[in-house]
């Protein structure tokens, strides 16, 4: 009953990953990189990051736990190790966030053999960038209220509709798309597609500007766009269930599903560093007990999230199979927000400074990250809706709608 340490293979892999990252750290970017994949605005940024993900994939640090036939490494539980090392190495993040954390795991679970072979390798290597088409302007938080229609015509689907919040849409080759294939059933009338975007006839991508002044997300219009039936994922009418898989893997679970490692892997450490560098009324913020307590609350919340992701994989310690997975989106987004908010508070007067100001702490990361964090607490089902889902599906309480 003694604790079993990591396997020798895992130890070797960690050693390998660490060495590789030391030896292959990328050159400085040609232009300033954004905080996260959500704000990639220029082709220069894209090329640089796409190249870096490709190298990591080729080195076996991304997709480690996917089968080799789909471009993966064929290992088990290597990805969390790779992610830890990517985090420690403070290298750039992976650009293909939607591909890695949403598309690939969903296709692995619901796709046909052909679909897996066609789509997963490009998602892992970053060669094909993915975006997500779950949100619509009229749908609000009610994700099941999709109005984008897909009508069957021979072996094709004719798609018309309007998607918003489309992160990376301006660079995307593919979109994971939920569309309505029947008006008669709210949930059972939805079907999931792997929709072509870049250069596809009938598809228009328009950038939107966030409250931070940055772009990176878009609206996407479908006007009689043709999608072959071979790009349908799982059965007609199963779109809601497939989308639930996607949302389950998003973020937290991404740890085991492709890796989004990079510089922001330990925000609590970043906050502690900020506090060490910041003077508040002539004293170091890291010496202020009220700030220290707030920092430790953040440390505990972040560690709790990591340990919950670990516990989610131990069935004997989970009363309800969806109890932890369904918390991930809620908690990762609110933790991110709370971390950033604390960063703003610690930075104090200097939090007023925008990233171009030379005195902005960490290039203005904290206030920008704080504002950007609302993207995550709002998109893909607001956190209010996430709480409904948890209350209803896990606790069994009556529906609030």
């Amino acid at each position, binding site marked *: 009953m003694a604790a079993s340490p990591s396997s020798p293979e895992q130890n070797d892999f960690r050693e390998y990953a660490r060495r590789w990252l030391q030896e292959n750290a990328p050159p400085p970017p040609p232009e300033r990189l954004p905080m996260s994949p959500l704000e990639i605005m220029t082709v220069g940024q894209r090329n640089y990051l796409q190249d870096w993900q490709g190298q990591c994939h080729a080195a076996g640090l991304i997709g480690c736990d996917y089968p080799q036939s789909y471009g993966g490494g064929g290992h088990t539980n290597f990805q969390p190790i790779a992610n830890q090392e990517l985090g420690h190495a403070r290298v750039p993040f992976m650009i293909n966030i939607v591909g890695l954390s949403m598309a690939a795991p969903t296709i692995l679970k619901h796709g046909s053999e052909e679909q897996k072979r066609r789509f997963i390798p490009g998602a892992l290597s970053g060669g094909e960038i993915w975006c997500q088409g779950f*949100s619509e*302007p009229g749908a*609000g*938080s*009610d994700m099941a209220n999709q109005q984008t229609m897909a009508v069957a015509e021979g072996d094709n689907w004719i798609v018309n509709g309007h998607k*918003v*919040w489309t992160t990376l849409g301006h660079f995307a080759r593919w979109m994971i798309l939920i569309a309505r294939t029947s008006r008669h059933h709210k949930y059972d009338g939805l079907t999931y597609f792997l929709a072509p975007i870049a250069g596809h006839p009938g598809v228009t991508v328009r950038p*939107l*500007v*966030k*409250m*931070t*002044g*940055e772009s990176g997300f878009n609206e996407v219009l479908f006007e009689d766009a043709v999608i072959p039936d071979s790009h349908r994922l799982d059965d007609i009418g199963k779109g809601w269930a497939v989308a639930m898989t996607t949302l389950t893997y998003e973020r937290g679970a991404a740890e085991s599903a492709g890796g989004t490692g990079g510089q922001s892997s330990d925000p609590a450490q970043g906050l502690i560093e900020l506090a060490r560098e*910041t*003077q*508040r*009324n*002539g004293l170091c*913020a890291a010496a202020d007990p*009220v*700030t220290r307590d707030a920092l430790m609350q953040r440390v505990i919340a972040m560690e709790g999230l990591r340990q919950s992701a670990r516990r989610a994989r131990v069935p004997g310690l989970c009363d309800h199979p969806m109890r932890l997975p369904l918390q991930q989106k809620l908690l990762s987004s609110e933790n991110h927000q709370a971390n950033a*908010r604390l960063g*703003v*508070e610690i930075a*104090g*007067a*200097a*939090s*007023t*400074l*925008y*990233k*171009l*100001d030379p*005195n*902005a702490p960490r290039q203005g990361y904290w*206030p920008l990250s704080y*504002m950007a964090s*609302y*993207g995550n*607490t*709002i*998109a893909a089902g*607001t*956190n*209010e809706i996430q*709480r*409904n889902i948890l209350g209803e599906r896990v606790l069994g309480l009556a529906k*609030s*709608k």
Partner: protein
Amino acid sequence: MTSEDRAPVDFGFGEEEEMLRDLARKFLDERIPVETLRQLVAPSPVPVYEQGEPPAWDRSVWEDLVELGWAGLAVEEKEGGAGVSMVGIAALVEEVGRHALPSPLLACLACSLVLRSADSEVARRRLGQIAQGTPAALAITPGDGSWEPERSDIQARRVAGELTLDGTAHFVQDALKADFFVVTARLNDKLLLCTLPADAPGLSVEQNHIHDLTRDQATLRFRQVRVSPSSVVTDDGAEVLRRAWPSLLVLASADLCGSSEWQLQATVEYAKNRKQFDRPLGFFQAVKHPLVNAMVEIDRARSLLYHAASCIDAASVEAEKASRMAKSAASDAGAFISDRSVQLHGGIGFTWESDVHIFFKRSLHGQVLWGDGIHHRKKLAEILIDRDG
């Protein structure tokens, strides 16, 4: 915990104050409704955020404000001002915050309140200029993250009867709109308070890039800047600022209360009109209850605001405590409704097109200005726990 013996039960908010406030609301509703504001300060993120242009403001509005006498609100009538009570000023500044008005008004009020507490000939002359519409700004903040005005990163030296300043003033609010500055500098073991024209030789005004689109902020660098004797307000600047400090906190709190109320009402309107799952958003307690909590926090801040203002008017010893309570409550209320205003507006609240972010950023700036909630609670504890009230 406080005594109200000296302050009137109605905070001294009488007919005159009410009329002033109602006029302010009407004027600002007409001249800078939110659509006008958005077109003015946020037509696109590029000019301010990428090209570093100063945030826009409407000089014609300012000229009309001066005409209405607002620049001299805190200036005594005998110096050419309106001599309005602090309670009246608080009420007017609430309206300024509610409209997120970009203007030198708050900086002018702040300077007036500091100069007024100095009671010197130089101060009176400057007060008269402010009342006539000459914009001024306060340059009293050091770079160590302290908002308390006891310190300065500027060194004054008197060499052969000539006074010169070297050093830096940080986080100077609305500096780019000012014609002159009210500056503190260390002079031996005293804190010198003086005024300097914005174009004084050796003084450079470096604009900060900031998030807030409705103010500007700058770093002032002093290199052998000469101060003429007729510009020295006092060499007991520490005491002058200590006396004026509660009123500066009232200004900042009032601005926050006003912007918070705008955020609350805008979000309430959205929750009334927007439908989800076939019901108005406001039906859902996850929307309704946070809005009620925000209202409760805003009301707490407003009540403490008027208490603080009335303590200042009554020259009560409670003024410091009351104003620190007000700023702590106003900062926290601002943070809470800012958060919920974006979240509950959903996707639209997160975009540049929405008005919400303009107030979000003004509030975020205001929450930290002159010290955030934690800071003022710390200072309050020193009074109430260590000094026993």
